[in-house]
């Protein structure tokens, strides 16, 4: 017990040297994360350079994507990506928040846990399995529903279809025609939106559940003490408090939706004439990469596909960054 600090200088110095070695080793391994990031940018940048050089910024505004003619513009895929993702987001947010409220506020404990499990398992289902299910189960249902639209008992519907088909052929549409079924295949924009909705639900739901659970109990109790109903407590005390966290979860889900590939590639129909009908075929940036990269022989085609990947890369980085920022900045202390 005598002179505890000065008695052992040698081991201290030894350990500081070995500590240094360990620190450098850990740092080197952790730096691989930086390396992966930089390598990704370099690789994608290098491979997309020919297309960017050839088309410049018009790559992002051009609508023609024609491998045979060697013209590549990504406007319709960018539109396809944004439309499918945002539509899926709009549908999924209320459902996700409701299920989060159910798990966190309504359900008894014996039910809340298994339901929470199930929602997390939903996030674990692989994209390709969602695609398979959508293709074999949902597409035929949508297809049958579309075919009943063309029921000969309603000649005015056929007339409407004929009118819309004429518009579509000229690359035009109207609001009414946008919702008129275009085929009986079931595949297309609508199915992609449905399957994306299901796929991003668990991300928003689990973030929302976590932030709702962390709303301080006295906040609820104070409202109840004032005689508030359950719904008043939720809408006035819980949701406003958890708002920022939920928004962060929504944006994280948006990031997922933007990059979701195979399920969408399997059901969206892979066509570049976009957005004339919600039932029509379309494509997203990710679906084009999946469907075309393997067959892209010419440098310009290949490079154009990689440029889609680069765009997706920066889009996801930006979206995720914003999501983290919102979660970090706006969430009250203690809920981060």
């Amino acid at each position, binding site marked *: 017990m005598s002179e505890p600090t000065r008695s052992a200088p040698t081991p201290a110095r030894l350990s500081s040297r070995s500590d240094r070695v360990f620190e450098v080793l850990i*740092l080197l391994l952790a730096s691989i*994360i*930086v390396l992966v990031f930089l390598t*990704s940018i370099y690789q994608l940048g290098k491979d997309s350079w020919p297309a960017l050089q050839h088309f410049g910024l018009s790559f992002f505004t051009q609508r023609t994507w024609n491998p045979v003619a060697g013209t590549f513009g990504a406007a319709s895929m960018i539109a396809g990506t944004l439309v499918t993702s945002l539509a899926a987001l709009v549908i999924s947010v209320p459902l996700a928040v409701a*299920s989060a409220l159910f798990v966190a506020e309504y359900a008894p404990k014996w039910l809340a846990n298994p339901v929470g499990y199930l929602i*997390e398992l939903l996030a674990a*289902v692989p994209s*390709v*399995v969602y695609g398979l299910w959508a293709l074999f189960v949902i597409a035929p249902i949508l297809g049958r529903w579309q075919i009943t639209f063309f029921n000969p008992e309603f000649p005015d519907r056929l007339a409407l279809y004929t009118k819309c088909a004429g518009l579509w052929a000229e690359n035009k549409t109207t609001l009414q025609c946008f919702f008129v079924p275009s085929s009986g295949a079931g595949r297309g924009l609508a199915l992609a939106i449905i399957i994306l909705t299901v796929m991003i639900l668990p991300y928003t739901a689990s973030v929302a559940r976590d932030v709702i659970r962390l709303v301080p109990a006295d906040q609820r109790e104070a409202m109840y003490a004032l005689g508030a109903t359950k719904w008043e407590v939720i809408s006035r005390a819980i949701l406003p408090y958890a708002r920022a966290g939920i928004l962060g979860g929504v944006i994280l889900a948006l990031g997922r939706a933007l990059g979701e*590939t195979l399920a969408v590639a399997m059901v969206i129909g892979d066509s570049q004439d976009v957005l004339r009908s919600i039932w029509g075929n379309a494509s997203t940036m990710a679906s084009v990469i999946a469907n075309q990269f393997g067959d892209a022989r010419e440098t310009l085609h290949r490079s154009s596909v990689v440029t889609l990947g680069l765009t997706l890369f920066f889009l996801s980085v930006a979206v995720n960054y914003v999501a983290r920022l919102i979660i970090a900045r706006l969430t009250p202390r203690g809920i981060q």
Partner: protein
Amino acid sequence: MGGLILLATLVVVAPLILIFLYLLREGIGAMNVAFFTKVPAPEGETGGGLLNAILGSVEMLLMASVIGVLVGVAGGIFLSEYPRHRLMPTIRMLSDVLAGIPAIVMGLVAYGLIVLKFGFSGFAGALALGFLMIPIVVRTSEEVLKLVPISIREAGLALGLPKWLVTLRIVLPAAAGGIITGIMLALARVAGEAAPLLFTAFGNPNVNLDPSKPMSALPLEIYRGATSAYDENQRLAKAGALLLITLIFVTSLLARRFSRRR
């Protein structure tokens, strides 16, 4: 309002149950001995299984784990044990950013890194999957390492142990359960990825254990089969999906059990 909320929850959970029941009904019949011991029959013929895909998946996941676990756990240790290091914010941010990068983009990266020079290979597929594992392992291991009480570290240091020994022999074992959970979740996550394998591992109709050659994987065969016009391929795809989804569910549930007991 309560009724609406219950209804919405049912809508959220329904797809999971519907998918599982559908795959069970359609796929269980194909889960025979041949499914586990044979490779897919030539197009248009019946019989055959997914041995090539099962072995390919196992092999690529093992290789991916080397990258994912080594870099991921090291990253977690760095973020939790060296919080004042000046590179900490950068590595934390980039690991978050990597988590959001679409899997197919990682496939493009692995293509440029390996396939362009050496051709399609299991290595290229494993590299893409390993990159995808890193951020998941970093995040979970950082979180559990931070849960290890400071007092335990201080006790080790007070005994005269150097910091690296405290980290390796005391902190890491204390957090091992949580770290293993994170690794299992990361594996479950990338085991289902087909997109980055499309043009890296590429797929192989035969059993191939040589990682420098094209290799098949379960999600790849599911994709091929589901988009194929042949009934037999579709049947194999459904059985493959049932196998994959069961493995993923069991892994996820085990991981959660494992982490909750701690």
